[in-house]
């Protein structure tokens, strides 16, 4: 998960207690009124006095050397105030840093935000301008003269791995191979993860199934295009308002890329219009700052939708081979996978995550996973909700469905027989703690969904998913107002509105004051210590640990105030039910003091009440989920309709249950989109052909049914309220669950993603031809 977990990370033991607020569903969450009235301020809504509009010129070629760039005509256009190319940014050496769940390399980050010696994908930024209007900026782009030497390109992952494939980087030698290869290749790295003896495992197997799967890249599809507003002042200070999942990480990257002191860069996270991992990377921010610096005015940059598709995200396209063996009574004896993952133009896909998550739902003795990270002429991939996991689950959960059928077992019984549980040794290292996987399977099995009758061409599929809960640096401040109300300043980006409400509930619970008396506000990079990104399902889980820590410090401060007033020792005061109270009858007969009463006395007894947290939250509390889907296949068109959908997931503890349902439903529908429609389509020149929502079709309301949800609660032992991350698991099972349902409906196995009408229709026709020829053979 990016970085190794720190041995000094914070764990706060789970305490079972009666809860008044946590676990309820407040109807007055802090962000909602502004969002339904149009007042919420997203980055594109911010306008600074005198601001210019910045725009990016992008490569029309999949791969080319840049021979020359002539900005003179663009620069001379009246209204153009500044232009930038790679010459305005220092080159960077190889240096890796965590940026969400994926790692970045600054040598590549600077090239990805502005091409240097070459362009490596359709949409690669080549130059940028800032002008007094959007129209002038667009006109200026047309005046930039770029001389390209177009080179052969490669889009497909398997083709890119071939020895004769065009090689994107002549200094890229496959890592993880001994001895170091003599020739450069598109295979940036080879990874392995092993447990037990795979040969022995296959020798013990009575049933062995080996299959190959292919998936296309899909985009995060957030509705808000990337947007940034930057202001660089003559004093050498930069301020940026931007849509980001991690403003502190962005500040660090901006400072590095522009060689500024971090203290001189302030990043303000605007309300975020969706991210799903796609807003973990800087694209516009350094360009906007540099255009502002050179143009001496603020600069706003907003991507068009086609730029979002061509140059941000997507996830990896993959080629996955899965081979698994089991006994006839359904015990898995061996599990093997080869994972070939596109990273796009620069190395570094979600492969490391895929490699360690591929089989981590099962209690296995013999595992072997090999993965390749492969550069291709596509945009550099970004994280997308459980990055890398849906594609491997497609393979593994489909093969498991086949094995269960071969064994004559119910697919959930088969999984129960092999399910991971507390103490299961994972193939990537740690043993699992208490987890709720088995409960999700059992609850799914018992769900009324399972009793619904299926008609002709209808089928039911099951699949499961697993994801981590990332910890990492998290900071927060609780300020108690003089009137006894509380303000929490949090530093993890709240991507949906759910976190800030959950934080408020927890602060209110800890303090013993009503939910309405707590306000939560996002702190910019100048307000708090460093916070890692909202990634790895950590936003609410880690953010609430910081909120608890800060609140408990404020409570300690309040106990100190009471002690001073009562003239007793601080340890003779306890906090119970929203009041400071004497610890026992021997302390004295003092009336308990409420937060409001203590706040009133605070000035005299030492000053303002506040609490701070600057912690590194321990990684932990993995989440598991089981999905059941019913589909109907239209044999004439190949269209697959989702009829019914049920999702059961372990949330550890649901702080705000209805919001968690919303996350489950949203993740499942994103997964349905991945399964049935979404894919990047390139032409033979390596140009993206569907860079818009008309041709890249994400699910609409009429495509999906209601998504039934059940929350399982197996507390995370290292979180004071038992919380697990919940955001990512829901997107993992839909792809294989739907593939399994299609098989159940019409008897064809779909192994090429997406399972769009043309592909399903072709599979049905191939099946008819195969059936006809086998009948012909039988008749002879």
């Amino acid at each position, binding site marked *: 998960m990016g970085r190794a977990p720190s041995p000094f990370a914070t764990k706060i033991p789970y305490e079972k207690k009666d809860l008044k607020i946590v676990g309820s569903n407040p109807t007055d969450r802090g962000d909602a009124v*502004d969002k339904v009235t149009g007042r919420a301020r997203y980055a594109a809504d911010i306008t600074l006095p005198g601001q210019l509009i910045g725009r990016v010129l992008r490569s029309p070629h999949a791969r080319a050397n840049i021979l020359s760039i002539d900005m003179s005509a663009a620069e001379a256009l009246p209204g153009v105030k500044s232009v930038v190319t790679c010459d305005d940014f220092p080159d960077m050496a190889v240096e890796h840093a965590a940026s969400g769940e994926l790692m970045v390399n600054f040598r590549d980050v600077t090239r990805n935000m502005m091409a240097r010696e070459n362009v490596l994908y359709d949409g690669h930024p080549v130059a940028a301008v800032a002008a007094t209007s959007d129209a002038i900026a667009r006109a200026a782009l047309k005046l930039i003269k770029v001389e390209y030497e177009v080179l052969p390109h490669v889009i497909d992952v398997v083709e890119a791995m071939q020895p004769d494939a065009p090689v994107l980087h002549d200094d890229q030698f496959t890592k993880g191979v001994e001895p170091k290869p003599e020739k450069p290749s598109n295979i940036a790295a080879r990874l392995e993860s092993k447990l037990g003896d795979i040969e022995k495992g296959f020798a013990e197997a009575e049933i062995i199934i080996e299959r190959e799967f292919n998936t296309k890249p899909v985009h995060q599809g957030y509705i808000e295009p990337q947007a940034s507003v930057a202001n660089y002042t003559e004093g050498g200070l930069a301020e940026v308002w931007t849509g980001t999942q991690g403003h502190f990480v962005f500040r660090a990257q901006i400072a590095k890329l522009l060689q500024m002191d971090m203290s001189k860069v302030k990043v303000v996270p605007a309300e975020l219009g969706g991210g799903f991992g796609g807003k973990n990377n800087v694209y516009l921010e350094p360009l906007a700052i540099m255009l502002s610096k050179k143009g001496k005015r603020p600069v706003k940059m907003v991507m068009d939708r086609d730029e979002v598709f061509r140059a941000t995200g997507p996830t990896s396209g993959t080629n996955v081979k899965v081979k698994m063996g089991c006994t006839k009574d359904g015990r898995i004896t061996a599990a093997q996978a080869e994972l070939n993952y596109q990273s796009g133009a620069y190395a570094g896909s979600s492969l490391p995550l895929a490699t360690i998550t591929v089989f981590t739902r099962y209690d296995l003795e013999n595992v072997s996973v090999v993965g390749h990270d492969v550069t291709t002429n596509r945009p550099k991939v970004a994280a997308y909700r459980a990055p890398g996991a849906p594609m491997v689950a497609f393979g593994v959960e489909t093969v498991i469905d086949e094995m269960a059928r071969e064994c004559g077992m119910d697919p959930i019984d088969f999984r129960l027989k092999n399910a991971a549980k507390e103490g299961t040794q994972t193939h990537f290292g740690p043993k699992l703690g208490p987890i709720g996987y088995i409960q999700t399977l059992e609850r799914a099995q018992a769900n009324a969904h399972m009793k619904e009758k299926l008609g002709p061409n209808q089928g039911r599929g099951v699949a499961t998913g697993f994801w981590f809960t990332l910890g990492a640096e998290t900071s927060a401040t609780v300020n108690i107002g003089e009137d006894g109300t509380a303000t929490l300043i949090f530093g993890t980006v709240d991507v949906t509105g759910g976190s800030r409400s959950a934080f408020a509930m927890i602060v209110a619970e800890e303090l013993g004051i009503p939910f309405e008396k707590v306000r939560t506000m996002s702190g910019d990079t100048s307000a708090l210590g460093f916070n890692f990104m909202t990634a790895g399902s950590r936003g609410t889980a880690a953010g609430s640990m910081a909120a608890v820590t800060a609140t408990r410090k404020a409570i300690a401060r309040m106990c100190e105030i009471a002690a001073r007033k009562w003239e007793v020792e601080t340890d003779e005061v306890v906090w119970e039910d929203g009041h400071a109270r004497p610890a026992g009858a021997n302390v004295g007969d003092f009336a308990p003091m409420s937060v409001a009463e203590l706040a009133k006395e605070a000035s005299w007894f030492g000053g303002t009440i506040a609490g701070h947290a600057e912690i590194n939250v321990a990684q932990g509390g993995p989440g598991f989920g089981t999905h059941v889907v019913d589909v109907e296949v239209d044999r004439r068109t190949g269209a697959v309709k989702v009829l019914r959908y049920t999702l059961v997931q372990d949330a550890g503890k649901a702080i705000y249950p209805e919001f968690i349902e919303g996350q489950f439903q*949203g993740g499942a529908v*994103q997964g349905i989109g991945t399964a049935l429609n979404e894919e990047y389509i390139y032409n033979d020149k390596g140009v993206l052909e569907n860079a818009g929502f008309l041709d890249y079709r994400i699910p609409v309301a009429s495509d999906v049914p209601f998504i039934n949800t059940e929350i399982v609660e197996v507390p995370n032992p290292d979180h004071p309220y038992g919380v697990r991350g919940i955001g990512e698991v829901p997107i993992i099972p839909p792809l294989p669950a739907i593939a399994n349902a299609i098989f159940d409906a019409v008897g064809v196995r779909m192994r090429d993603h997406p399972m769009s009408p043309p592909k399903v229709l072709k599979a049905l026709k191939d099946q008819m031809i195969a059936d006809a020829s086998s009948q012909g053979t039988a008749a002879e």
Partner: protein
Amino acid sequence: MAKQYVTTTVNGDLTELLCDSTQTLLDVLRDELGMTGTKEGCGTGDCGACSVTLDGVLVCSCLVLGIEANGKSVETIEGMAKGEELHPLQQKFIDHIALQCGICTPGLLIAARSLLEENSDPTESEIRYWLAGNLCRCTGYHKIVEAVQAAAIEMRGN
């Protein structure tokens, strides 16, 4: 090119403005009038985030020119609540958690209001097909459909 003089009514207020003949109604609302409640998700009429009504007709404001609003009445999200009192759809969207990131919410609310003006008692299917032009990537639409159903019941008064 000289700017065009446009008089229009926005949320009941008579509004005069100058705009380029190439500017969309969305650009005019956001950039000329500072009404940023209407969002741009695609600029090509595919996502519905910029939904407004023009003389009562639901449109994507990115597909309408600003000068087409001349002499017409535009209703945007900023006009939906009456003072502090939210429209029933706005309240039900909050109650049912029909919004997460919120970028699609203004467009969805405008579109849902149009639906309920045409059909006060829509079926689930009618709601889903009416809102099919409004993309939401966060919610999976479940709670949006529930919120519209709940608002319809309240607005019918039964």
